[in-house]
């Protein structure tokens, strides 16, 4: 089987010669008297070349994005799921107010000033970094699982595999597309998170530094998640298998990124230690794991 870019050349020199090394005359394609003829259809100077890697990447990437934009299925389900996670968190922290001995939230007497009646009694700011990332991890688990399901169902996957290109490019395109989706969902849900849990709390001046861990963490989640989602989509397992594989693998990244986010939100006297060091480690995770995933993807998809 020849790839689209290869030339097909029928001159006798290319015929399989077998163990004899020489073709008997009456078996060659061309009768001995005729000089070897070149196939007339061959283009003269420029055989069709494979499109460059970057072009291929763009095509795949655009394809993924367009597919999602058409149905908006993944984005909307991710967004709604994030919202639901926030609601669960809300229930989790609803009763952190002043509690009477009977266990029911105390009813404050009429004249008490202070915080609005239903705000959490404890300051959530120290755990807010962790909560945020918990939401992101759960949401991305859902999104990653679905991103492959839809494609497999439509049989578009087989078509992509037939194209003779560097399989790792598929990984890059898919991972970037997933990253974009994740960032879009984050752009909507993080402000929501702020509204639900952080408004009224004193955020440190460095809160904008949260963008750093968000970017680095999302990149890692998208890359590793894409590989693992491809892995599990070919197995008998359910979405749970993806979670089983995903959570331990993403744990180091999660650990560093939560540390950095908390440092950014809470503010700390020693930002170099509390923010820069986790950021460096998170970046190291990305720099190590993403190339590993890139290299392994070819093997996984080719099976």
């Amino acid at each position: 089987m020849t790839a689209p870019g290869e030339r097909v050349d029928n001159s006798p020199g290319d015929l399989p010669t077998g163990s004899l090394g020489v073709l008997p005359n009456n078996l060659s394609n061309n009768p001995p008297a005729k000089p070897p003829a070149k196939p007339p259809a061959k283009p003269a100077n420029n055989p069709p070349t494979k499109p460059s890697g970057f072009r291929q990447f763009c095509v795949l990437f655009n394809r993924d994005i367009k597919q999602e934009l058409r149905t908006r299925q993944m984005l909307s389900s991710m967004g709604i799921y994030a919202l639901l996670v926030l609601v669960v968190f809300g229930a989790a922290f609803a009763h952190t107010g002043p509690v009477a001995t009977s266990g029911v939230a105390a009813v404050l007497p009429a004249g008490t000033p202070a915080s609005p009646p239903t705000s959490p009694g404890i300051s959530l700011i120290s755990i807010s970094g962790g909560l945020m990332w918990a939401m992101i991890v759960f949401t991305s688990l859902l999104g990653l699982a679905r991103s492959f399901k839809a494609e497999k169902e439509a049989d578009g996957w087989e078509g992509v595999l037939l194209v003779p290109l560097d399989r790792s490019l598929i990984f890059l395109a898919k991972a970037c597309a997933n990253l974009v989706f994740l960032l879009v969902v984050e752009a909507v849900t993080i402000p929501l998170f702020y509204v639900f849990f952080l408004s009224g709390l004193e955020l440190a001046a460095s809160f904008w530094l949260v963008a750093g861990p968000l970017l680095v963490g999302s990149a890692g989640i998208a890359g590793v998640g894409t590989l693992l989602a491809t892995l599990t989509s070919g197995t008998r397992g359910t979405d749970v298998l993806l979670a089983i594989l995903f959570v331990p693998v993403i744990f180091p990244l999660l650990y560093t990124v939560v540390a950095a986010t908390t440092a950014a939100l809470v503010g700390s006297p020693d930002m170099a230690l509390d923010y820069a060091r986790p950021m460096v480690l998170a970046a190291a995770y990305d720099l190590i794991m993403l190339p590993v995933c890139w290299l392994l993807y070819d093997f996984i998809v080719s099976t």
Partner: protein
Amino acid sequence: MCEEAVKDKKTTERDDKAVVEGAATALADRMLLPLLVAGALLASLGFVLAFTTAPLVVGAEADVPALIGGQMVTHKLLLSQKIFFFHVPVAVVSFIGLFVMALYGLRFLRQRDQIYDLKAMVAAEIALLFIVMTMLSGELWERFEWGVWWTWEPRLTTYLILMLLVIAYFILRAGIDDPERRAVFASAFGAIAFVDGLISLAVTRLIPAGAHPVVFRTDSGLPPAMLVPFILTLLGMLLVAFGLYRFRLRERRLHQQLDELKASYENQKGMH
């Protein structure tokens, strides 16, 4: 055809390699029992030395200093630190097991010989075994030192993640029926798991968890009296691990051969 000649050459090369490997395998299997016994003995020797010759490590400060054996002792002496002598060697062996698993996984990806996948799986089993041992001893050490059943301190957290990674490896294997595909996927995940384990190890130690300070009493270098039992136990455990690995490998290969025989028997029966 030329291709057949090439194939024949490759087969004879593989046969030669198989003969050499077969000899090595036979040797390793013959030495199985002595290996295991030697390993157990070494580990026990290390254990005994750990208790007799290694000096007790200092803990909290005692109220009044005392003179013991000609030396001024100002702190309480800890026995619980002795767990270190079998906790750490076991942890080291588990990491080696993980490394072997990842290595054989990569070899499979390159050479596509199912034996490497089998070896990777057995290595993963051994690694899991030693991870469990690490966690049990670490758990007991933790319980005594800090009085709690769990903290998110570097050692325990890293090992929890490692344990989850290896368990995930086995669950992944269980979810795929086609042997070729199972081997490829398992090899890929094995490589990822190993790299991830290393990163976990580094990350949990470089970022303080905050809740409980980790006191690594032994990070100031080991005096030789402590080093000897440690090395002995480490070597002993390594030998035990290797022995168990070959034992399990032999059992799995036998099982595989049995399955193949069963399959061909069924085929023959079907043909009659």
